[in-house]
């Protein structure tokens, strides 16, 4: 039996290689930033979630952090949180004191006497669900990803637990679950959103300091919140396009 040999000429080789190279160049022209940003805001009319937190309204009760731990089976230890509250105290001699004992779940104590306090306030923290999320960008296997609704989620059955995303998050919102060996983070209670329910932290807040909703819908709670308040995001210089907007954010907050 004769062996059939395909006869490739040099011309064919050059043709094929240049077609491939041209294809790569063309693809990168169509979508030049694909490799830079993990996701881009979808152009369609789907939901695009954002969160608003009104610092003026937060009383530091820690209900959000407590509700989150219960709802999402976050380990009880005081160093694993999807959601926590920080207390900022600026003294008359311009010292900045920050604390978050047990994430604020057990409430706060103010160690500084009243007469020494210049101002004090609470800042609830959670995942910023950035539009250009650095955490999903660095995941080596794609287990951290952004949902079409703009939420940074983790496929825990796929995560290898390397911790690179924990390093990449500028806001300290991720932790490695000590029992599962995989990363865990706020999902804005995606499992509840799917059923048409509100996230646990939103439900638990007694003062209505937290709102969330569809940023594409200009009448949603979060869109109206942004319209009525002068909001800011954390660490804007990092260009993560955070979608967690704070009203009355003091410049001391990082």
């Amino acid at each position: 039996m004769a062996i059939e040999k395909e006869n490739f000429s040099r011309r064919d080789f050059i043709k094929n290689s240049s077609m491939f190279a041209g294809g790569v160049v063309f693809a990168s022209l169509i979508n030049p930033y694909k490799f830079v940003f993990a996701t881009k805001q979808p152009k369609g009319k789907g939901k695009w979630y954002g969160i608003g937190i009104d610092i003026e309204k937060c009383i530091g009760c820690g209900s959000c952090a407590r509700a989150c731990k219960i709802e999402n089976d976050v380990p009880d230890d005081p160093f694993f949180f999807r959601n926590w509250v920080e207390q900022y105290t600026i003294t008359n001699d311009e010292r900045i004191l920050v604390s978050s004992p047990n994430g604020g779940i057990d409430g706060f104590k103010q160690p500084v006497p009243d007469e020494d306090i210049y101002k004090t306030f609470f800042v609830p923290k959670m995942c910023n669900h950035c539009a250009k999320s650095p955490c999903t960008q660095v995941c080596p296997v794609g287990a951290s990803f952004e949902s079409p609704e703009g939420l940074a989620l983790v496929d825990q059955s796929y995560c290898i637990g390397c911790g690179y995303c924990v390093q990449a998050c500028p806001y300290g919102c991720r932790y490695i679950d000590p029992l599962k060996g995989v990363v865990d983070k706020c999902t804005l209670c995606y499992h509840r959103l799917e059923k048409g329910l509100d996230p646990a932290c939103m439900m638990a807040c007694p003062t209505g300091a937290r709102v969330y909703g569809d940023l594409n819908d200009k009448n949603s709670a979060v869109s109206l919140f942004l319209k009525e308040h002068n909001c800011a995001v954390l660490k804007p210089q990092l260009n993560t396009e955070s979608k967690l907007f704070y009203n009355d954010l003091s410049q001391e907050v990082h």
Partner: protein
Amino acid sequence: MDKIQSLYEALTKVDGFIYPNELALNWDMLIVMYPYITGLVAGAFILASLNRVFDIKALRPTYELSLLTALSFMLVATMPLITHLGQPLRFYEMLITPHLTSAMAIFGFVYLWYLMVVLLLEIWFDYRYDMVIWSREKKGFMKFFYKALTLWVSDTSPESRKTDEKIGYFITVVGIPSAFLLHGYVGFIFGSIKANPWWSTVMMPVIFLFSAMVSGIALVMFIYMVVTYLRKQKIDMNALDTIAKYLFYILIIDFTLESLDQIHRIYEADESFDILKILVRGKLFFTFFIMQIGVGVVIPLATLGFLQFKKPRVRIRKLIYWIISICVLVGIFYMRWNVVIGGQLFSKSFYGFTSYKVNLIGGSDVTLSLLWFIVPFFILAFLLWLLPPWKKAPPIEIPED
């Protein structure tokens, strides 16, 4: 769980404020070993290529030794990473479904390229002729083993040796940028994290590269001296002096680059500067100023610099080289330590610090790190027994056209 226990202990040692999730240092000593070991590979290979490509003849006695050292460390280079994973058995996901925007995802491919295409091929072409000869001399299993290593190629003609030589040269030429890629890339894994101002510098890949060369050269220097001593042979002082000369030059470049990075950081003094200043002067004082700069740079630079002008007796010189190689190896280890551990000690809120305690006894990260550092020496011992450079046939002369 003792890990949780140690976190409760760490909780009492927090200075200032950190984000609650920052208490646990996710990248422990194993991740210090990862760039350290990878750097040794890249450095040892560069030393080998100095002889092969840049034709520095004085380095001939260490050529094979450098390659085998690179291979021994390369074989375990991924082990610290894999054993560190929360789900070690899922590591293959990185190879079969790499996420292309991740700097870490491509490491597997860079690693395999370097191991398979560069190191193994180069060593194979270098030893092919000798393995054929050895397969003829040995008996029984070893005969079969060497035959298998030659892939049943038994050509010993001068033409085939010339071809080996040419292909080997070509692979080394490809290998130099590959070695640069391998370790520059490891630097990029850290340098590309914008959330961490201690890591996020464009200099990181370059600094990693040069510190890799420094550590690899020091390692080969150390191993060459120990192996020659164990074989009760005479050390080729010319080779050793030449290695020391290159170590000196590259150490100068490395230190210049690192200083540039720090001076730039200090002069720009951006928002992260205040916390980093406290970090370097406080928690990193010993590892940064004493170990990395003092032991790792100042002592070797001063000594090697002195030796460029005045050469003491051979015995003293040998002792100096031996001590200096250890100093450099220790210094570069602490350089990796300061990057990896230092980068996690301060809070990204810039308001405080967490702590990292090395559990010398019973800490799984320390035990594993030590293991992954010791195993390569055993692999090297095996490779030197299997492929002894000193029993190789003299190289064939290629007439210049």
